[in-house]
């Protein structure tokens, strides 16, 4: 709940901060509606569509309505998948509008003590500090390895959690140890002729919880002929902060990353998580009003490239790739597809693998409902979206679902678990699958 005074401040900030041109660019044609997962799953409610949300933002700016609970609800319900952007005839950058609106609300609203503590821990205490991310992951590792996990499971302690969190606990990968996480490479040499010099953006979760996938990524880059630099000074990309209404912190992280990478003299900065890549590739927008950083941000974003595109460019799909016979399908990472505009390269790579029969899934480009922390804060809508996704996945008869982002990967694993399919269906990150195909 917001107080009348908070609402007045929010309204006033909407008027000064929201990009009016961008709001005006929406011509309300409605072409975005059929691509919006929340519009569809809410039973065609305009307030849960991009057009409706833009109209609400504009109405707050115009003073037609107050930023009341319903407005906030509508904005919170958005996945931020940005599927509305590629289909928009006017090219409205909806994601930017959403981010700004969420930031205004979050910065001017007094959350309950509990929510404040959680936000503080997540946004300031944890993600910006890689050592703490490692520590947390190590704790998860301790839980998994010490026998606590089996005890907790045996005594049904997890049943105290909401169901989707219980399932989430099951699908967490087996995480690396403290020692493994602290012993990371800084530079790797190419195998064979050197074709490119690239930097690798490791990410926070990817370099802890999903460290194996990062290792696989670096291995593939080496095999494809890349010299790989991994600057230790890099930080979390800040996507979580940017999407969650903590723009200021996102900017600080962006600056740290630009500094960490700009002197490396590399061809590309490679990412393996669509969510991170999409945020990195928009650093120029994030820092556009900061005179000292705008140009440096532009130079940085020009180098961002997803691993699958790098591999295709280096003809990795023409090397020998083979797996044992299986049906494979691909779930797009929304941000990889809608923001980084990468949709073909992953499919091209998968189709090149001998033994893998690639079958396109219906609505593969529709969000899986993971959406950062959406599946934790909006579990009901998230699970509804996931259930639809799993129906489509089952129709393909695939035994392997490939994704390109850690959030999507966990969500697909969650979906498999919820459907009781874990005995014959798996979800993997594309680089892990490629490494498997390339021979480990």
């Amino acid at each position: 709940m917001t107080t009348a005074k908070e609402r007045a401040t929010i309204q006033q900030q909407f008027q000064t901060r929201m990009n009016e041109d961008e709001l005006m660019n929406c011509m309300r044609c409605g072409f975005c509606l059929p691509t919006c997962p929340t519009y569809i799953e809410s039973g065609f409610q305009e307030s849960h569509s991009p057009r409706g949300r833009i109209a609400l933002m504009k109405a707050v700016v115009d003073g037609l309505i107050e930023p009341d609970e319903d407005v906030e609800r509508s904005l919170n319900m958005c996945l931020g998948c940005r599927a509305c952007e590629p289909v928009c005839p006017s090219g409205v950058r909806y994601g930017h509008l959403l981010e700004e609106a969420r930031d205004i609300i979050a910065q001017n609203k007094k959350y309950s003590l509990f929510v404040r503590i959680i936000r503080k821990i997540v946004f300031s205490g944890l993600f910006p500090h890689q050592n703490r991310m490692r520590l947390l992951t190590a704790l998860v590792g301790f839980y998994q390895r010490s026998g606590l996990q089996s005890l907790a499971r045996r005594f049904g302690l997890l049943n105290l959690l909401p169901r989707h969190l219980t399932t989430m606990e099951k699908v967490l990968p087996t995480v690396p140890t403290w020692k493994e996480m602290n012993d990371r490479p800084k530079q790797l040499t190419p195998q064979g002729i050197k074709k490119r010099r690239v930097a690798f953006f490791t990410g926070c979760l990817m370099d802890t919880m999903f460290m194996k996938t990062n290792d696989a990524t670096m291995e593939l880059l080496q095999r494809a002929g890349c010299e790989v630099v991994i600057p230790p000074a890099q930080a979390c990309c800040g996507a979580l902060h940017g999407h969650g209404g903590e723009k200021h912190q996102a900017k600080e992280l962006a600056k740290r990353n630009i500094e960490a990478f700009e002197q490396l003299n590399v061809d590309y900065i490679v990412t393996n998580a669509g969510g991170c890549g999409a945020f990195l590739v928009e650093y120029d927008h994030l820092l556009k009003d900061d005179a000292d950083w705008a140009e440096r941000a532009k130079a940085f974003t020009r180098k961002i490239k997803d691993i699958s595109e790098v591999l295709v460019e280096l003809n990795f799909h023409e090397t020998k790739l083979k797996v044992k016979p299986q049906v494979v399908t691909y779930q797009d990472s929304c941000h990889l597809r809608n923001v980084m505009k990468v949709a073909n390269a992953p499919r091209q790579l998968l189709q090149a693998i001998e033994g893998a029969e690639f079958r396109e899934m219906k609505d593969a480009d529709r969000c899986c409902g993971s959406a950062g922390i959406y599946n934790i804060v909006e579990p009901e809508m998230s699970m509804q979206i996931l259930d639809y996704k799993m129906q489509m996945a089952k129709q393909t008869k695939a035994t392997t679902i490939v994704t390109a982002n850690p959030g999507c990967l966990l969500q697909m694993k969650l979906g498999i678990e919820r459907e009781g399919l874990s005995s014959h269906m798996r979800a993997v990150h594309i680089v892990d699958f490629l490494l498997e195909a390339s021979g480990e």
Partner: protein
Amino acid sequence: MISEKVKQSFIRIVGSENYDDSKAGRLVYSYDATPQFQSLPDAVIAPRNTKEVSEIVKICNEHRIPLVPRGSGTNLCAGTCPIEGGVVLVFKHMNKILEIDEENLTVTVQPGVITQDLIKAVEEKGLFYPPDPSSMKISTIGGNINENSGGLRGLKYGVTRDYVMALEVVLANGDIIRTGGKLAKDVAGYDLTRLFVGSEGTLGVITEATLKLIPMPETKKTMLALYQDLEAAARSVSKIIANKIIPTTLEFLDQPTLAVVEDYARIGLPTNVKAVLLIEQDGPYEVVERDMKKMAEICQEEQAVSVQIARSEAEADALRTARRSALSALARLKPTTILEDATVPRSEIAKMVKAINEIAEKYNVKICTFGHAGDGNLHPTCPTDVRDREEIERVEKAFEEIFAKAIELGGTITGEHGVGAMKAPYLEWKLGKEGIEAMKAIKQALDPNGIMNPGKIFAKSERKRVVVTR
């Protein structure tokens, strides 16, 4: 205003989950795709069946509450903007395909079915529903019927009107009537089906429709012709038709549009050409081959500088890019995009396009024209900015002159978008006083209290009004 008592009676009918009078809930139904129109309804109601619609209408009629049936709100004539407030009816629950009848070649649907979903469902059975408005991915059949929507395939296959065989309609007094049937021949009384098609929700609420289907054409081919001369392109169009060929698509882009499209999509089209025709034919293989050959010859005879026939679907898709990108390219130029649909007999196309370009120059506004050359339905489109009042004045004057010119050439003020609130001030130019009176008499007979989508079709004043905010 809706009193608490009336509100409770609405809730008793549809349940509180289907009645929304929250500020945000009303705001998101205060507009459609028409620039410069916005007005808040008093409530948004989602009925679950025809009986509920009838009960809602009865209450509205008794309390003189305006009622606006709304599909997905994609129309361009402010047809679903609730300019006098009242109730917006949404059909999110009434969105089922009820029956595909393969013996009578019909499909029966509820009004909330998305046009493209219907098209896909019948195509799975080898059947074809031709009307294809540009918004078909999200527009509803109910909306299409109320606006009598056209589309790219209009030249050969006609428009929505030509496919509506029967309707279930709730009248303003709450009566439920059924018009027409699954009948190719039916002369039992007035043709009310045709009356309701295109009535823009001003005569009743359509709650069910039976639509005609035809067999799916076997093949389709695509061709693109470029011209250095607008008249030459227009002559090609006339000559194709004079040669007894009716192509399924005959689309046109003028030079200003082409320049904008090329700048946006970088297709590699020469921007010095004056006109582009996108031509498609479908049907049995031999017929399509013969027609394409003949049409290519005609285009060449008429001095087309280039004629390309696609050899594969991928190539066809590439040729369609220019036409398909037209709206996106234009919409990106300025915050506001005004897309009109002045229509003339196809023999007058060259004259009309020339006049549009002259008018744009006279008022110093940018107007790009593309559209359906085959049926004379043009889309003069103006990228502008509603915040620039002085420019908007000039834009409005330019469009007034365009409408006047269209009528002078034997055309109409709107080919497929509808009258709504947007074109109501100009309707008399097309119909004359007597024509308007005849239509008003029908309206008065069916909706004596004027609750059905008030403020649409018939203008209160002759001069255009702009933004309404209630």
